[in-house]
């Protein structure tokens, strides 16, 4: 591991002042792992574990404000989250292990990086190593011709097919969360859909954060009255594994008709994949198997499978149909 300077920030102001070329470290579950692999080589680490961002508060107009330092297990087991934002609690509890969820934070989960084996290979992007445009732009993508069973089928580009690994983010995409950040130019709010970036020509740019910006809160809007939500995750084993396909659904059904619907998918996209196509196929339609099947077809219509992951297209469709059934039952 490359060495680094370590700074412990006692306040948000101090953290921002120290930011510069630094990386913030919270739970460390992604960052320390990637530092051991030489994927991340920060010159300075700013420890933000002392920042007073570890509360979950109700917003005045309804909704919930989640501090960036709230641990994943605390968020998943929060009574308000379990009752009103079931999809979020279920998504978090389906991810990682209890130990990792005790460490990982809300802000850190938003910054989680791909599990693409070529990206994580210690010499990727260097001379003699595997090509990785995310690690070192312009070195190519070894996954295209390599083992790509776990890779994305939606939002890919000719430069990168890495899957976004987070479950929490899929639920937050369906809940239309808002991410609050603070940086050298002040505070701003970023809609969840605008936070993560598809790879396009710049797979190394993964999100909308500007240099030196710190995630402070994530706001969940007030849930639509009468809506139910659920998260379904399919994977190679029933626990402690990344998704092959997952679906987050928030739905309200009245008189058999779908009156409110939000759909996001995981395990298949290069970012947490909100499916407006599926939502359009569901809105105002009867909540039945025919509608669900049509929505699943619409959600995966633009899928571009690779050599080893064509199965994900059908798996993701069935995953979404099952999640829609649960959320509208």
């Amino acid at each position, binding site marked *: 591991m490359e*060495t680094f300077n*370590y700074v412990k920030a006692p306040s948000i102001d101090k953290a921002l002042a120290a930011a510069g070329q630094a990386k913030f470290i919270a739970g460390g*579950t992604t960052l*320390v792992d990637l530092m051991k692999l030489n994927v991340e080589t920060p010159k300075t680490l700013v420890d933000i574990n002392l920042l007073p961002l570890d509360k979950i508060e109700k917003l005045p107009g309804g909704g919930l404000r989640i501090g960036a330092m709230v641990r994943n297990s605390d968020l998943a087991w929060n009574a308000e989250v379990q009752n009103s934002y079931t999809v979020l609690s279920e998504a978090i509890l389906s991810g990682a292990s*209890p130990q990792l969820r*005790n460490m990982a934070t809300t802000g850190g989960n938003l910054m989680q990086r791909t599990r693409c084996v070529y990206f994580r290979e210690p010499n990727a992007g260097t001379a003699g190593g595997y090509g990785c445009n995310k690690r070192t732009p312009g070195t190519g993508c070894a996954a295209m011709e390599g083992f790509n069973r776990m890779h994305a089928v939606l939002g890919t580009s000719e430069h990168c097919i890495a899957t976004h690994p987070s479950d929490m983010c899929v639920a937050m995409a369906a809940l239309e969360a808002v991410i609050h950040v603070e940086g050298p130019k002040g505070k701003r709010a970023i809609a969840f859909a605008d936070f993560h970036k598809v790879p396009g020509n710049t797979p190394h740019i993964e999100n909308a954060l500007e240099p030196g910006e710190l995630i402070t809160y994530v706001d969940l809007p007030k849930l639509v009255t009468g809506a139910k939500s659920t998260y379904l995750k399919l994977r190679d084993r029933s626990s402690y594994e990344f998704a092959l396909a997952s679906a987050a659904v928030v739905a309200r059904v009245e008189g058999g008709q779908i009156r409110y619907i939000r759909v996001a998918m995981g395990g298949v996209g290069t970012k947490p994949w909100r499916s407006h196509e599926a939502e359009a196929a569901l809105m105002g339609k009867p909540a039945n198997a025919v509608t669900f099947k049509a929505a699943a077809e619409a959600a995966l219509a633009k899928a571009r499978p690779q050599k080893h992951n064509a199965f994900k297209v059908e798996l993701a469709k069935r995953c979404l149909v099952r999640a829609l059934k649960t959320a509208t039952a």
Partner: protein
Amino acid sequence: MTDTINPHLRHLLPHSREKTTSDLAPDQQSVDLEPLPEKRGFSRRSFLSGLGATGLLAGTAPLAATPAVEPAQEQSEAVGTGSATLRINGKDYTLRNLDPRATLLDTLRERIHLTGTKKGCDHGQCGACTVHINGRRVNSCLTFAVMHEGDEITTIEGLGQPGNLHPMQAAFVEHDGYQCGYCTSGQIMSATALLKEPIGPSDDDVKQAMSGNICRCGAYTNIVAAVRQVRSRV
């Protein structure tokens, strides 16, 4: 006859703590960067290290007289954060020249010589390194020691000792919840932590809650039995 104890059996004798000449309070201990002086006793660790060295030297006879390898260059470059004090099992350990890159796991094992906590994958995937920080279970391989000043750290050594086992340790013994034993301290640290977590009552809930601890020998059935027994008595 009584003076000559077979070194292979020495670990069965009661431990006699090595005396330290320290100005620190009785509940404090200073830990230097240098490795501990050669133990007069014979531990499983020193035995295994010795085996390794013998194995290496066997193929390189001309080097046999060379003294121990100099510390790697990067080790001395890395120092710089100064000292940090970690509170482990109710005792303060002051670590001089703590390398910021030292994980909590490596610090526990290599600096403080609490070797009950095991290194398996070193990437947060196996759970062998599980310890408690402020009462919650975490993977000690994925966090830097320097980040934990002021935290209350508990390792398997702090949970219970021979003669005074934690009920979970006793249950693992009773139910044979291990084979080779390498994952066991992590399993037990996880199992004691889940007693305070809001998980459901079934065996399936236990299995889900224990899924961050991998057992290569496959002692899972007995591990679940041990956890079930302790949960039923809590």
